[in-house]
């Protein structure tokens, strides 16, 4: 470390240290059934600073935001806001005291105007009538403060681009006179030049004494806009108040990695070089999602794709499966080209998909387990159009035994199962019939530790039986622990490929975050 950086670091510390602390979290714990989402979080935010929150997927960032936004109430620990201990009953309560949250999926009403969105739920009123003129005037003022006086307050939000919508979200925060604005990956929806504009606005906000909690995976952004960094891992604060500009990336990454919870991965058998090729994807492209992706999966091989949310991984899997139509490129299964955009063709070719959103994309929650297990195969089990319930139950029982489903009663509604067991039902669906290639999208999201180990074993067993597996996960250790071969995706492109045994978590995270390591080394 050079002298100049030490000096600037010192100056920076002094700069923020004399500002008053507005938010202090001490030992905050929040548990959900089977998961300890927050396990002792410490966080200190000062007025007028940009406080960055770093952590991998599942580290507890989302839960932490929701605690601050009044969506969840902590089980224990204290939240001090402006010097007082608080516990928000609901999001409105948090909003009223000046904590505004801008979620990644902007929660705007598309068919209301900019002003109506900014003042949604607290419109200025007289005799029960909304004072539209006043609302428009104040909105114009706020937009001016944000440097976007050109957005007309009466314009419909639907007609604005993503960056414009984000401005409206911030206008909403300011309409509440927010003293703290939480931004969850605000740059994820923005193009490169729009990010600059976002930063300009953030600087103006902080100059007015407003504190910002900034969440992003992009190291270069944290370096540019952040003042201090707090790192979360497995629901715990592993490092607090590190200087954002000068802390070496390697140190930040190492604070994010290295699990306290040890996942048990089954042994990886040596790769079988003679295995026949099962899937060959060439030049697959969908504009704005992913471009020119080529990959292969052999029989009995597990190929993992690592990448951030938004890197195009889920879209890639769905396109291979035919749920989205490829704009260019081909998908071949055992040498035969699949018809683009046809799920039926993919299923007939022996491909199965366990999608990212279990409940909304894969399950009939009110229907019995066995009907969910046979959802893709009941036609094949049927006799001339008549369903064969007995055989379906028998097959579902067989699957339930293989996957150690709990509870074991296949007549129960799927709704009654835990997340891990629901996932087993989704995976189990494709064990019936002749699935040769399984596409798994975030197979362990929302699954507790015990069920994870079981799912890993199931995936390994499948591969041992000759099924090819293409696995997508935000959790790097999972990809590394399971996959024989790893592809790293960033912004819709495969940027690296290596055997799983030759990669470590830090290298992958680095690639995913776009060469941040080199940048850190230079600093």
């Amino acid at each position: 470390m050079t002298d100049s950086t030490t000096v600037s670091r010192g100056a920076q510390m002094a700069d923020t240290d004399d500002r008053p602390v507005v938010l202090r979290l001490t030992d905050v714990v929040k548990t959900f059934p089977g998961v300890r989402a927050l396990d002792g979080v410490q966080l200190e935010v000062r007025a007028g600073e940009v406080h960055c929150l770093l952590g991998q997927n599942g580290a507890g960032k989302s839960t932490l935001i929701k605690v601050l936004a009044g969506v969840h109430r902590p089980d224990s620990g204290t939240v001090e806001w402006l010097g007082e201990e608080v516990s928000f009953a609901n999001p409105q309560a948090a909003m009223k005291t000046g904590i505004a949250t801008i979620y990644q999926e902007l929660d705007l009403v598309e068919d209301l105007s900019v002003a109506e969105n900014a003042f949604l739920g607290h419109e200025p009123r007289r005799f029960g009538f909304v004072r539209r003129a006043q609302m428009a005037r104040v909105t114009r003022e706020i937009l001016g403060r944000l440097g976007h006086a050109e957005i007309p307050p009466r314009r419909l939000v639907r007609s604005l681009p993503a960056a414009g919508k984000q401005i409206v979200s911030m206008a909403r925060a300011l309409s509440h006179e927010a003293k703290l604005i939480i931004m969850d990956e605000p740059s994820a929806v923005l193009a490169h030049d729009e990010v600059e504009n976002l930063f300009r606005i953030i600087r103006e906000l902080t100059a007015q004494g407003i504190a910002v909690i900034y969440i992003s995976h992009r190291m270069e952004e944290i370096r540019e806009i952040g003042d201090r960094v707090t790192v979360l891992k497995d629901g715990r604060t592993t490092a607090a108040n590190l200087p954002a500009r000068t802390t070496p990336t390697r140190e930040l990454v190492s604070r994010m990695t290295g699990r306290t919870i040890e996942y048990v991965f089954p042994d990886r058998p040596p790769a079988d070089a003679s295995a026949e090729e099962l899937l060959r994807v060439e030049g697959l492209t969908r504009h704005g999602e992913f471009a020119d992706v080529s990959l292969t999966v052999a029989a009995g091989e597990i190929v993992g794709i690592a990448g951030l949310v938004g890197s195009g991984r889920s879209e890639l899997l769905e396109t291979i499966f035919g749920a989205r139509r490829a704009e260019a490129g081909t998908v071949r299964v055992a040498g035969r080209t699949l018809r683009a955009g046809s799920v039926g063709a993919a299923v007939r070719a022996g491909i199965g998909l366990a999608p990212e959103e279990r409940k909304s994309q894969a399950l009939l929650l009110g229907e019995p387990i066995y009907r969910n297990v046979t959802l893709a195969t009941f036609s094949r089990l049927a006799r001339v159009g008549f369903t064969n319930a007995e055989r379906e139950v028998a097959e579902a029982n067989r699957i339930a035994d293989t996957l150690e489903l709990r509870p074991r009663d296949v007549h129960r509604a799927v709704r009654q199962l835990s997340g891990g067991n629901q996932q087993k039902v989704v995976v189990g669906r494709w064990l019936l019939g002749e699935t040769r290639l399984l596409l798994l999208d975030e197979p362990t999201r929302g699954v507790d530790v015990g069920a994870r180990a079981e799912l890993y074993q199931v995936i390994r067993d499948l591969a041992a039986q000759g099924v090819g597996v293409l696995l997508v996960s935000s959790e790097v250790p999972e990809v590394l622990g399971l996959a024989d071969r790893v592809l790293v995706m960033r912004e819709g492109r495969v940027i690296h490929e290596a055997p799983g045994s030759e990669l470590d978590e830090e290298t992958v995270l680095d690639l995913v975050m776009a060469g941040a390591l080199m940048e850190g080394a230079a600093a």
Partner: protein
Amino acid sequence: MTADEATATAVPGEATATAAAPGQTKQHGHGAGANQSWWRSDASDYARRNLGLIGVLVALVVIGIITQPQLYSDATWVKNNTFTILQQASAIGVVTVGMTFVIIGGGIDLSVGAIMALAGVWATTLATQSYGAGGMIFTGLVVGLGVGLVNGVLISYGRLVPFIATLAMMVAARGLAAEISNKQTQVSTSQFINDLASAKLLGIPVLVVILVAVGALGWVLLNRTTFGRRTVAVGGNVEAARLAGINVKAHTLMLYALSGLCCGIGALMLTSQATSAQAAMANMYELDAIAAAIIGGTLLSGGRGTIVGALLGVLVFSTITNLFSINGLSTESQNMIKGAIIVAAVLIQQFRFNALTQFLSRNKAIRA
């Protein structure tokens, strides 16, 4: 139920699972039936689900007996009156079966009344009638099926919202019916068609036989075939169905075609009853059919519903109509009662369904 509870109940569940041999599901059912009161056994599940509607039906009959004791003391009258009620329920009942499929599949068909009018009118034009009863029946069925197919194509492949597509069809089909009939009542000269309404098969009116047959076929189709399973899957979670390889578009198309076909059958039944057809026939049948399906326990958002419940709903409505007519009351007041019944039935079902699912999950956990 939370994950914790799920795992908690899992422990005893597992014990029985390993102890019982294959085929344990059957023993499971018997055991439950033998050890517990009948209303908790699996066999009574159907009865239990429709208990509310059966209760309403019984209550309506009791009200009939109280208000007209001398009529109800005559066994022949009671038999004939029952047939009257069933005959009045027959055409709308057939249409409701089709509607129930559409709603379970996640859609809605507002055009059923209009399709019936068009099918009825088309089947009774002079040109059609010149081909005899066979030609009329064929025309009625094909027109119903054809219009249903158009609905289906608009919704599946034109990506129109079902509400909009069938609303448009509701207006357009009635317009076409008025155009074809020149706004005149078209009298049926076919003896076969006209006699159908009064004919009996083994002492049971033929129209009632048709209703029972369509109901039975509908039940089998929904509960025992892959078509029915696909319907539930598409209506319950369209994305899950699609990602499981089900051809959602083709299936949706078939659902509306099925509804159209039912309308064709219903139109012929109405034509037979009136010995004529006109553009204004089957007025508001769409609302009656939807209401019957809903009070029969069909979820308007799709994914759940029963044929038996929907037909019980139809019976409740036609029993009310009958009750008012034997007491010489106005049809205006019975519409108010109908409205109240719809609200009451849905309120009771919501309450009961929630209570029931909770009760069942607890009960099953103990049983397992």
